[in-house]
């Protein structure tokens, strides 16, 4: 309500009110920025050991919406969008890559964020990695049964939001997010571990 003027804000409001057509337009607007930031992060000369999606999304928002007062409302909409965008980008990429290799490898995400120099290393190995496409499919199943749980996963996993941020974005309590996140995570891990057995 504070800043209805910028195209970003307008599109975000439309999208959050259910206008599906606003999504591609938002992607057009934000994709380059998300990509550019990720790009810069990866080559950042600083001693960053990880690429944190959270940082990326925060920064993307600041860049895209530098003019607004930054009400939580508009930021929440952006987080929701960025999480969805990230999910699309990752899934599309995984699909394309798998198609290139004719079903060769499965693209995996590692579950854990590396914790700097001394983090216990899981990088390199396949353990602790999750199949993006399978996650996406499981998330669809979950969304059909409990939309909010699916949104929690989307915001936490793809958007990198913390529990309190997720709660604020979904206008619900921290406790609800914690409870549902615990369950949703269990379902996904179950669905994915099953998948891995094939």
């Amino acid at each position, binding site marked *: *309500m*504070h800043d209805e003027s910028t195209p970003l804000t307008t599109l975000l409001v439309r999208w959050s009110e259910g206008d599906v057509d606003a999504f591609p337009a938002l992607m057009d607007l934000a994709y380059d920025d998300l990509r550019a930031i*990720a*790009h810069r992060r*990866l*080559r*950042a*000369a*600083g*001693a*960053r*050991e*990880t*690429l*944190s999606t*959270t*940082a990326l999304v*925060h920064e993307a928002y600041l860049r895209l919406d530098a003019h607004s*007062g930054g009400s939580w*409302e508009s930021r929440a909409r952006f987080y929701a969008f960025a999480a969805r965008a990230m999910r699309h980008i*990752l899934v599309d*990429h*995984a699909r394309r*890559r798998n198609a290139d290799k004719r079903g060769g490898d499965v*693209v995996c*995400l*590692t*579950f*854990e964020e*590396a*914790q*700097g*120099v*001394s*983090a216990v*290393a899981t*990088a390199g190995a396949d353990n*602790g990695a*999750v199949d*993006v496409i399978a996650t996406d499919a499981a998330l669809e199943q979950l969304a059909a*049964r*409990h939309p909010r749980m699916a949104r929690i996963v989307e915001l*936490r*996993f793809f958007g*990198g939001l913390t529990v*309190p941020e997720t709660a604020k974005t979904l*206008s619900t*309590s*921290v406790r609800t997010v914690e*409870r549902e996140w615990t*369950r949703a*995570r*269990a*379902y*996904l*891990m*179950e*669905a994915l571990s*099953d998948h891995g*057995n094939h």
Partner: protein
Amino acid sequence: MGTTDELLWSRWEEVDRCLDAALDLPAAERPALVERVTRQDAELGALLGRLLSHAADASPRLEAPAEPLMAELFPGERVEPDLPPGSTVGRWTIRRQRGRGGMATVYEAARADGAYEQRAALKVLRRGLDTEDIVRRFLTERQILSSLTHPNIARLLDGGSTTDGRPYLVLELVDGEPITAWARSHELDVPQRLTLFLGVADAVHAAHRQLVVHRDIKPSNVMVDGDGRVRLLDFGIARLLEQGSERTMAGSRALTPEYASPEQLRDGPITTASDVYQLGILLHELLTGQRPQSENPRTRPSRLASEAGNQPVARRLRGDIDLVLDKALRSEPEERYASADEFAADVRRHLRGLPIQAHPESTTYRMRKFLGRHPIVLPGSAATAIALAGFMTLLGVQNQRLGAERDAAEAASRRAQETQELFVNLLRSPDPYSPADPERGRAITVAEALRMGAVRVDANPDADPTLRASLLSTIGGVFNSLGQYSDARAVLDRAIALRASTGDTLSTVFSTELGLLSGAIRGQGELDTALVVSERRLRLEREREPADPALLASALTGHSDGIEHADPERAIALQEESVRLLRALGGPELGIALKTLADQYRGAGRDADSEVAAREALAVLEATAGVDHPNTVMARHTLGQTLGERGEFAEATRLLEQSLHVFERDIGVDHPFTLSMRNNLGVAFLNAGDPGRAEEVFRALVPARERTHGERHPEVGSAMQNLAASLLGLGRLAEAEALTGEVEALYREVLPPGSILIAFPMLTRSEIQLARGNFAGARRTIDGIRAALDGRLPNDHPAVIVADCRLGRALAGLGADAQARMMLDGAVARMSSSEGVRDEHRRECIGARAALGAVAPVDSLAG
């Protein structure tokens, strides 16, 4: 998809119910439940068992997609082949890769010569990144580390270049966990966490003594090893203070936004104060599990803990630790602890039970004290606005606006049932963890009860959103009345978000909530944001079919309040429209609107109109609301102010003192309304020619306003401005002039651009400068005034006339007699038709003109 997968999704509702119930049980009782389920349905039981083990998996899985896929998504950034295990770098043998960052790859290594058994972390610059700039940075890190020896800083063991010329560092290997995870997994209590933190602060202080600023303090750079020793890592973006001039070199933006200090984010000069801030964030996260809320970094940590449901920790943090963190997390570097050492010293003092140094007066929660003494709920809502007094050197600030009160009353009656339930529940089942505050030894205050109520309403997602919104807006209205504007705003924001989520954005309650929200935002001093909200409401009401005159009147009043600081003429027009609508309806609302209009007339210098409106307002309210009702008291107060302007000082001070005493008794001495009344009494003393008593009033008012409104708030500025005017009246010119500078700086910081209030401290200064014979300075000041007022006030407004008159005096002082004459002639001419100009200003202006001779202003003197 496999069979168990099918089971999961096909019987999901059932599975989810079981899992939810199982998770509610203590861990020890879960296997029994699984067993019971298994007996009835083996498949389901097995699935439940697996789900419970997934749920108990404590690894931070599925939190955020990590680097490998991202790296793959953005080709061209592919990492070079690893140094394979067994390869040799200098005196070190690579064992395995441990991590990979933007700049370097980290391996675990051991001494190749076997001279002694030592494992180490070997950090080598990534291939292709060995540009001059990055290599220099890498070498800087090496130089910095070699200068630092501290038990809490990971040591530099060795360094050199690989055979292909890339620089590397060998560091002490810290096998452990980030400080926050370690504290969690070891279930440390608050004192243990504070003690752990002291190790970090000491390490940072040691670095500062070597003129090294770390710049990237965050949990993943603070590891705790198996012995429980903290180690500060990663001086990769650290720098030597002497290099400060290179601030803009490439890569200076390499930082972690969530942990960056404000000056880092705006690319300002980085000093040790930046590390103090980052230490503050680290401690905050260590204690509450969360970083400070980005939209309000100074929200009390104890409150966050409390909202997260951790009452014991909340109690432990309340008080000292809230204050300590508040001081560390100030956005202005110079307001923080002067060093990491001072920060640590305060934490130590707290641990020993000694008084801390962080100063309580400067915190965001001064209202607590006030509410402790005055747990009263005032009916109605407060919207604060600033109006102009008819006189330039002081501000008659009357900021009582009760236009939104009717809205609150309506909402309250409509939701009376729900509200009653809420309050009954609050009283019947106080939070078991905080039945009373042990620190203060008394029952919880209304504000605290309301906060708990809001959290409960909000935490009940199953309730109907419309009902939740109504309860929240009721609570918001009460917070407004208590002057707790930030609480009010937070709760009302939630209510409005809920309305938006249900598509309920045309209803009358939504309109009322917008009114309350704009009042809360204005109360916080964000005048232009408030305006956006009140305008939206006005638009909503103007477009309503069929029109609702009461709501439209309320929206007009609300927007009129908001716009007054920027456009007083328009504010009056809106208010007159509101009064016209209300005349048809009658009731106390008419009295309130008339009272507001009287204030606005007075602000515009229309004192005769103001007196008529104020007398009618008082009569209406005495008849409809009662003699001692707050609104009636305010109308009486308004009449007192207006009579003061008209020179009837005895009657004016009598009315003002009378209304002040009622408010002190009924509402409390630190309530914003009461403070405004105190201010206005001071103004009346000034007008009555008693600057001594005025000074007394304002000197006490400034700190009271700072406590109630916060230090950087327009209300504080107006109190200071009035103090400056009193000092001027007492002839204490130097003090007064210095104060006007402070007021102007404050106004420029907190008021929206274009606000005419900025002219007021400048008008006072111009008078002082003229009195001291500083004509050039006065002229510059008046040019500034004319720029600030340009087009925003009519030409015959007293402020404009007196500014012109002052300019004439300055020009005369500078010897530009012809120009001075022209300016003064214009001012004198307009003065005769403007009733708001005070006698002493008439004399000032006419006298200055007379001193210039040539055309005698005899006629004007007679008038």
